[in-house]
């Protein structure tokens, strides 16, 4: 029987130097401009996957996961999911889909255009993995859609709803990267090495506490593929830094940039899931962030690659500080827009507030008054969308709406606003790239609430308050 190593060598053999067209016509150097490496053929894929091995392993995984999901559905599992958790999943799954579909398209490009044959081969498998992940998330939404409103038009919401514009921006930005190595940095390193453990291991563990066994199973089977993707990123990063020290400044910039974007667009919003939508809680988000992002990812990266000059992310301290408030700020901002959402919101209970008091010492001082006013009868509903950051498309409300860090730049005669130093810094480095987006707050100027809902494809009684929480 032909062995795995032999199959892998066969795949590497398949790349050839063209002679009927210039090599640059098939592999335009623009796809890796600014990156230096002597011998791309020396690049190695740590997994050496062959096709036959791939389908065998993946078929086994699917044979484990899908029957479990079917059984969960058939035997009333969804009915036993906590209602709050279910509302949170209405937000989470379209965001995850954005990520996976973007990763699928991004890896199609890496696998086609990366200058190293081994990286092309590895990215090819990642691209098909991301199809699996995309469709597994759709399987979940398909199942949950049968039992509750708030999933049925998710594909339109991911295109048009303000809540999902940040994820749309993030993953389209990864797809649109000019340099394939930047997309590897953004996706494989920051999304996958830094965040997938938090998303696909940390969050499911909370999901299980709240009756979401199918979701936990789905996210864990997704994570089983991520090991390969992380390895692609880590080996790429190490090889580029080891291979030529001229790569360091660009890689450092990408690390600084994508760390901030991931913190802002995934880390901050995700915090509402374990801290709020999880009635039964485990670790607070700030501790999950500390564990998975700071202690595992950043410390591990510095230990491994610091010798090549790579520094911790520029805005690390700002991100850590923000985690004191980000989940609370975002949850109450969403509460103010509950009449424009596809999921339902709720008022934190006494139990929730005890948890916050224990884990977020400043919660009462910074966020307590808002909820007192709500309990006193103020619905807090707002008539129009908030100022959205030009880069991340999130509301400019951080760290707290009462005193947000709003930054301003003028570019090409237009005033642009940013939620943070990080987003402004990114914009000022790449203004052409990040000036294209027009925030939905500007698109929907002058519209009333029904018109805003119509634009965002919200029908019927979507949104509002969960009747029992």
């Amino acid at each position, binding site marked *: 029987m032909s062995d795995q190593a032999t199959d892998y060598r066969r795949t590497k053999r398949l790349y050839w130097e063209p002679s009927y067209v210039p090599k640059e016509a098939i592999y335009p150097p623009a796809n890796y401009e600014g990156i230096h490496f002597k011998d791309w053929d020396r690049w190695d894929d740590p997994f050496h996957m062959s096709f036959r091995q791939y389908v065998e392993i993946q078929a086994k995984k699917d044979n484990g996961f899908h029957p479990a999901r079917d059984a969960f559905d058939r035997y009333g599992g969804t009915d036993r999911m906590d209602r709050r958790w279910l509302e949170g999943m209405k937000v989470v799954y379209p965001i995850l889909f954005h990520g996976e579909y973007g990763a699928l398209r991004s890896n199609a490009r890496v696998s086609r255009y990366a200058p190293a044959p081994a990286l092309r081969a590895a990215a090819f498998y990642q691209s098909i993995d991301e199809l699996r992940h995309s469709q597994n998330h759709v399987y979940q939404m398909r199942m949950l859609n049968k039992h509750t409103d708030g999933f049925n038009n998710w594909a339109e919401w991911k295109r048009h709803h303000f809540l999902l514009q940040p994820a749309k921006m993030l993953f389209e930005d990864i797809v649109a990267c000019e340099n394939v190595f930047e997309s590897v940095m953004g996706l494989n390193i920051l999304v996958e090495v830094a965040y997938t453990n938090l998303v696909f291991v940390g969050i499911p563990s909370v999901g299980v506490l709240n009756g979401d066994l199918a979701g936990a199973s789905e996210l864990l089977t997704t994570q089983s593929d991520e090991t390969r993707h992380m390895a692609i990123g880590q080996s790429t990063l190490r090889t580029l830094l080891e291979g030529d020290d001229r790569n360091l400044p660009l890689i450092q910039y990408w690390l600084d940039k994508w760390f901030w974007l991931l913190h802002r667009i995934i880390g901050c919003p995700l915090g509402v899931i374990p801290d709020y939508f999880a009635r039964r809680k485990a670790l607070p988000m700030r501790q999950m962030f500390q564990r998975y992002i700071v202690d595992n990812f950043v410390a591990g990266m510095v230990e491994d690659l610091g010798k090549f000059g790579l520094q911790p992310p520029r805005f690390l301290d700002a991100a850590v500080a923000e985690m004191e408030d980000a989940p609370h700020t975002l949850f109450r901002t969403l509460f103010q827009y509950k009449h424009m959402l596809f999921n339902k919101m709720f008022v934190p209970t006494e139990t929730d507030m005890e948890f916050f008091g224990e884990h977020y010492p400043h919660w009462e001082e910074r966020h307590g008054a808002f909820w007192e006013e709500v309990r006193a009868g103020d619905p807090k509903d707002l008539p129009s969308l908030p100022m959205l950051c030009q880069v991340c498309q999130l509301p400019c409300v951080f760290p707290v709406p009462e005193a947000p860090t709003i930054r301003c730049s003028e570019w090409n005669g237009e005033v642009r606003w940013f939620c943070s130093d990080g987003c402004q810094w990114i914009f000022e480095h790449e203004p052409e790239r990040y000036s294209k987006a027009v925030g939905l707050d*500007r698109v929907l100027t002058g519209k009333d609430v029904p018109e805003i809902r119509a634009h965002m494809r919200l029908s019927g009684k979507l949104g509002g308050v969960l009747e029992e929480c």
Partner: protein
Amino acid sequence: MLIYARAEGCSTPALLMTPEPDWSVKMFSRIALSTLRADKSRPRVAINRRTGEELASDVTLGEAGFLPYDLFELVLGVRGVPGDDGA
């Protein structure tokens, strides 16, 4: 005209509003505070957040030198007292 408005210390994020250029700063301040559901009892000063410039209450918005999408901010304090350094 299109300008954002926010009020310091208020839980409402900055909102994009469409005032008339001939509205005075004073008039728009009242409208903005109402729209933003801000505490009207506290003294505030209106500033152009981009420039940091304090706005006289009798100047019209059209005369105040706003660019489209500028931020009209009602900071806490009395006239002549520096607002918070956010810009």
